[in-house]
């Protein structure tokens, strides 16, 4: 059997200790090892943002991040946004504003917006566009996604 490296992570508040082959990506760790399939793969090249998760609060493309690169860090996925079923204001705003269609880019979109608001609770219009603009959505034309993020940034609950 190939080499396995011991690693530990905190994922959505839970601590994991495991041994993983060095080629395991963060996305594979989440989806294949832990069954956290809310994080999606689309372009596989770190361009589209469907696989975005937070690493210590910073948005990261998990498809091009190796698991060992984030050992010891705190990772938040879409499954971790609503602890105990209490939805994050962003999740509610996405529904209210009609910002979801097929839903495949949605976890990445919500996470990148979460990353933005964590670092910058009062983002400018430009900063919202910049955050949303780093992920790709094919269904919505972005209009309602931007609306939803703006609404939360402006304090709508």
């Amino acid at each position, binding site marked *: 059997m190939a080499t396995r490296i011991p690693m530990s992570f905190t994922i959505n508040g839970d601590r994991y200790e495991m041994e993983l082959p060095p080629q395991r990506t963060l996305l594979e760790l989440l*989806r294949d090892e832990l069954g*956290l*399939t*809310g*994080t*999606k*793969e*689309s*372009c*596989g*090249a770190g*361009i*589209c943002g*469907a696989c975005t998760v937070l690493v210590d609060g910073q948005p990261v493309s998990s498809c091009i991040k190796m698991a060992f690169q984030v050992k010891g860090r705190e990772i938040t*996925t*879409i*499954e971790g*946004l*609503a602890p105990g079923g209490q*939805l994050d204001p962003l*999740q509610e705003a*996405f*529904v*209210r504003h*009609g910002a*979801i*269609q*097929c*839903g*495949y*880019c*949605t*976890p990445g979109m*919500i996470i990148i917006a979460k990353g933005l608001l964590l670092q910058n609770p009062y983002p400018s219009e430009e900063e919202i*566009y910049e955050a*949303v*603009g*780093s*992920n*790709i*959505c*094919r*269904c*919505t*034309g*972005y*209009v*309602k*996604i*931007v609306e939803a993020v703006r609404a939360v940034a402006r304090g709508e609950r």
Partner: protein
Amino acid sequence: MAARFVGARIKRREDRRLITGEGAYVADLARPGMVHAAILRSPYARARIRAVDLTAARQSPGVLLALAFEDLQPAGPLPLPVPHPALKAAQEFPLAPGMVHYVGEPVAVVVAEERYAAEDALDLIRVEYEPLPPVVDPERALAADAPLVHEELGTNVAAHLEQETGDVERAFREADHVFRERFRVLRGSGQSIEARAVLAAYDPLLQALTVWSSTQTPHLIRRGLAPLLNLTEAQIRIIAPDVGGGFGSKGVFYPEEFLVPFLAIRLGRPVKWVEDRREHLQTAIQERGQVHEVEVAVRRDGRILAVRDRFVADQGAYTPWGIVVPVLTATMVPGPYKIPNYRFEVTVVYTNTVPSAPVRGAGRPQAVFVMERMVDRVARELGLDPAEVRFRNFIPPHEFPYVVGLRSRDGRLQTYDSGNYPEGLTRALRLIGYEEVRKEQERLRAEARYLGVGMACCVEATGLGPHEGATVRVDPSGRVYLYTGASPQGQGHETMLAQVCADALGVELEEITVVTGDTAGIPQGTGTFASRIATVAANAVTAAATEVRARALRAGAYLLEARVEDLDLISGRVQVRGVPEKGVPLGQVARVAAGAVPGPGSPMPEGVETSLEATSYFTPAQAAYASGTHAAVVEVDVETGMVKVLKYGAIHDCGRMINPMIVEGQVCGGVAHGIGNALLEEPVYDGSGQLLTSTFMDYLLPSAAEVPEILLDHVETLSPLNPLGVKGAGEGGTIPAPAAIAAAVEDALAPFGVRITEVPLSPERLRRLISRGERAQDGGRG
């Protein structure tokens, strides 16, 4: 019944699972004992396969199976669901038999315990190819000495069609002006954010195959698969779970739809195949590629008397949807205009590229591009405002139903059911503030900033047949189940159809469970394409729910000892009209219909039908014609060739809107796709047929930076063709967008004399046009 839910902005019931990561797409599913398939694809656009050696791959660790064409026998050609008398169809096989016809065509397949092992084993397969010169350019494919894509056909022409209405020759003779132009629309693709995926499991005990496929058409997949696998349709269940976008790219019976179930049966283990983005870019169907030579005959007041359009349509290597795309283009060229004389001639040609089939818009963006560009040309030549030329040529609102004079895609006389095109344009111009934009344009030109405004109108055949159905069933618990073959990929069918059902039946939204995308739910289905679901499926839901309501009232009459005429069904209770306390919940009524009351051994109560359920299929006699008018304001940076869309107004007429929030989402998303077609998206092939755009780094999709705030308004002309009065909304956002943006760019660059006859307008292409214009001006001054 009064509409409580139809027409309301109801929040989507799908969203809860999608915002929490609980959506279940095919790649998210697992079955016990599941193994993984990977596919070896042709690196050549055209080559003979001399030999395939699978020995090393089969010995690779973890590999269970490695197969090439010979190992599939007997595996007949893939289905051709849309035949056409004029079509010379080439047979497509799940794995290439002896020849490959485009880069990416499947040659061999490997199944292994892990996907890594399967992918690694692909590298061990030795294929001996004899590369042959390919034909990539559709016009070149018509040359006498062009290589043949399918030698057995003896020609690269897949089909040639002509049609004429009126007397075109005469109109050209009598016209004041004749204008000619050549247009090129380049290819584009769907690029759903979820690529394709198939998971199949065969149960030998039940002799039943279950396939989870990221498809738009589960029932069509079942229909195609049964004869290939020598199973009955009853033995096959196709489930399209959550599907991450389709846009036409998932409406095709691909080789993998056969391969994965075949492998699962062969191995006796569940097999999963998940496409990666490179594969999707290389092999998912594309569309749009056409070259048009158009002439218009015009009166001096701007009235268009006749149009003559000859075009070549790039079909790629196969015809998975027949020649639907070029037929749609050809018949939609006249669009919203009253053009008494029209002739088209289309030659559909095979090339060594990815097969062409409908992508959101389906041939109509090209038709609109050609026609609207010509209308702009007429305006320019005659010194008229482009809006004015449109107003002068529109079919007047009082002339519906309007007979265009052509046979449409379905073979029937093309007849527009309803519309109000002048109203659409008036509102579109108001949305963007046309007059003010013109003033602003003037002012900015003095500062050497180039603002432009463009508009485009379209008519779109939506809600096509043959049918879509719905089963509505009331469970003895009182819960209402709605099953339909209308399988969604993000359009919110669960919510929209629940709204329709709740109104027609008389229950609350929360009482309804909607099951889509499962062939076990309803015997027949067609699928989601051609903006058809709100028209075809929703009217089937109305019919089925209305029948269930009638049955519930009759069973309720027995329970309440009342006359049927005195009963009503409101909020899930059958009650005496005006005496709400005298009523019974629907579940109790369902128990009567189930035979639970009075009970086994007793006769059914008189007048009560067995089972509180009904299935209904809506079979539209013809298309319902939606329409749209878009207006775009752009600024062009003449130094870089970059185009910024500053303002975008979209008017859409899809008849009655069942859920305006969902319609708005459809239109905005469609516009973004159209902006991609206008400015960014282009699959680029080199001369040897290699796709140069095989990542999202090269094939550019619009991001939030390229899509402006989209201003929306709606014209509602109800369709007289169905009880709900609806028309489709799925593609209208995309269709006019490339034409509107091209017009705006040309308008912006009027000082340079730039003519836009080709999309997409990459900065590089635009810079070339601008510098040619600058040189011409310098020359003129020089």
